């Protein structure tokens, strides 16, 4: 018997979308019912079993990578722990003058262990995700220099969520190395931390200290968690099915056949894609966080209303927060605090001042962060360009900050006034949309061609009504689709404004009478059932970030 068909291995790929009937009408209810039925002390094992069944169903034999990562985490953690324990006992009997040297020796040993872990985990990720990109680029170089060699471009199956769980596994090893957490001896707890079923597809990228204990000690389902969790899930479904998936065919049409459209339509395509991506990813995050909440698990937030950001730098503190935090903690800070970089900072500060001195060292670390960010998203030049684009924007934003402050001061401009803040938010959103155009384009060359056509053709075709009608006809859509998207966006925007003001809509709703609560609940369900983009004429759209 072939492994690929064994016990439904890989037979439910569609479950990577949290909004398919198989997932939310079969898998999740079965999981909740069985979780409720098992005794409290076995609940963690039920969650672990459900998570592995989920991964088996969506990935089949590729589950081996998840298992390998878990075992590797356990081994490297325990190895580090052993060296750290030995270091402590040795240091306790070492004379004071020799302590520094002894400590250095043990730190070096720990660094080698971490390096080995990085080599293994990141190596597997690089091998599976980037070897095709690397070899095809090498072939292009060979052809350019007329070298008669052509390497075979490998094609590997990528395990679902590998980009996410690899970073999560690495954060565990780094945190053990830094002494932030103790190495875990319980492989079950580590396996659940890494493989918890809603989170494994597209994050959020959790730290061991955030979720491992919570998951392992998950208790009975509480009514409040159940209702709050379902509400959050439904809100995500609204974003994904009513907005993102409804825009999807329009976005595909514009990006695939951009040369048939005007600059105005290409700009509209970039805006639509940005909305689609945000609604898709943040909607999926609502689903993940909502499902986890049903079991009483608090997952870290991945979005905090990014389009209210006043700068690109702030935008990335509000968009895909857990990835940004990972890159900051494990790439940015280790680079800027490395010995030579600190010397560079101190020397540069004396020469070029308090602002530009640290900016020099910071820019090297920032470059590494954004190169990794771009590459993490995919093995294509447009993703690397996307990273570099944001690197340049953030760096230039930092570089000109003193000049902008000085101009504002001299012109008596209140940088905290509503209109100034609004202008900053609009500017940030425009820059984000341009970045997303390159991100979504079918290759970097097409990205530049689209951008060129958009810039040169935008003014004469800013409101290309006929072009829009053509897109709608070609995709079998009509103006009603756009009205539904617009109305739903207004509702999501209203919730965002309230959240931005510190008002929790769910908490406010919970204070209302039961009749009102259930009326809102049913209204939301009916709205999704009527206006959701599914059924005839729609193909189920996989979560966009699951491919990264």
């Amino acid at each position, binding site marked *: 018997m072939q492994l690929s068909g064994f016990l439904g291995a890989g037979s439910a790929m569609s479950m990577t979308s949290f909004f398919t009937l198989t997932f939310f009408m079969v898998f999740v209810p079965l999981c909740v019912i069985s979780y409720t039925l098992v005794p409290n002390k076995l609940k963690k094992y039920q969650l672990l079993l459900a998570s592995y069944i989920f991964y088996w169903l969506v990935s089949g034999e590729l589950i081996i990578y998840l298992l390998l990562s878990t075992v590797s985490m356990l081994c490297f953690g325990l190895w580090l722990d052993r060296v750290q324990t030995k270091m402590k006992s040795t240091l306790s009997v070492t004379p004071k003058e020799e302590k520094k040297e002894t400590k250095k020796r043990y730190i070096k040993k720990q660094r080698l262990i971490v390096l080995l872990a990085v080599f293994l985990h990141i190596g597997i990720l690089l091998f599976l995700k980037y070897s095709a990109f690397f070899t095809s680029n090498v072939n292009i170089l060979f052809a350019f220099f007329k070298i008669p060699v052509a390497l075979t471009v490998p094609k590997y199956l990528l395990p679902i969520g590998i980009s996410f769980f690899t970073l999560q596994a690495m954060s565990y090893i780094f945190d053990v190395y830094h002494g932030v957490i103790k190495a875990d001896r319980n492989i079950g707890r580590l396996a659940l931390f890494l493989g918890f079923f809603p989170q494994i597809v597209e994050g959020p990228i959790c730290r061991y200290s955030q979720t491992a204990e919570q998951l392992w000690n998950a208790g009975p389902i509480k009514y409040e968690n159940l209702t709050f969790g379902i509400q959050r899930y439904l809100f995500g479904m609204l974003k994904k099915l009513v907005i993102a998936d409804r825009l999807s065919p329009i976005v595909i049409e514009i990006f695939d056949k951009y040369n048939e459209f005007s600059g105005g339509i290409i700009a509209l395509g970039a805006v639509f894609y940005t909305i689609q991506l945000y609604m898709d990813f943040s909607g999926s995050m609502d689903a993940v966080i909502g499902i986890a909440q049903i079991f009483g698990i608090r997952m870290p937030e991945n979005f905090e209303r990014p389009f209210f950001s006043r700068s690109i730098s702030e935008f990335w503190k509000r968009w895909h927060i857990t990835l940004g935090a990972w890159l900051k903690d494990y790439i940015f800070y280790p680079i800027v*605090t490395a010995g030579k970089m600190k010397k560079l900072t101190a020397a540069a500060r004396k020469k070029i001042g308090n602002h530009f001195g*640290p900016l020099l060292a910071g820019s090297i670390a920032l470059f590494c962060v954004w190169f990794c960010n771009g590459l993490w998203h995919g093995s294509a030049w447009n993703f690397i360009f996307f990273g570099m684009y944001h690197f340049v924007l953030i760096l230039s934003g930092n570089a000109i900050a003193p000049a902008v402050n000085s101009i504002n001061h001299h012109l008596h401009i209140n940088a905290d006034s509503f209109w100034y803040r609004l202008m900053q938010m609009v500017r940030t959103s425009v820059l984000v949309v341009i970045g997303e155009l390159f991100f979504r384009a079918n290759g970097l060359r097409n990205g530049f061609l689209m951008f060129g056509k958009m810039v040169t053709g935008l003014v004469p075709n800013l409101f290309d009504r006929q072009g829009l009608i053509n897109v709608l006809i070609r995709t079998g859509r009509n103006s009603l689709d756009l009205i539904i998207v617009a109305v739903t966006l207004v509702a999501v925007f209203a919730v965002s404004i309230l959240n931005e003001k510190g008002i929790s809509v769910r908490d406010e709703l919970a204070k209302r009478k039961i009749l009102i609560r259930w009326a809102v609940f049913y209204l939301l369900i009916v709205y999704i059932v009527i206006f959701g983009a599914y059924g005839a004429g729609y193909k189920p759209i996989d979560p966009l970030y699951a491919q990264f």
Partner: protein
Amino acid sequence: MSKIVSILEDIKPGIDYENCKDLIDGHHLDSLSIISLIAELEDEFDITIPAVEIVPGNFNSVEQMAAMVERLQEE
């Protein structure tokens, strides 16, 4: 503590460092200031500040910075 205050005033003047308790959370010190601060603190107190110590809880006030420096000196 006075040494830390004078380093901070050199890096970013115009803040009441002795009384401010939310230097990071209140966005008084940005990441560039922190990069400079780390280099100066290490130089002044002969310590190594690892990346893992760069958390708001260690930099929100001069007292917290002093406590971190003291702890790292003992290690």
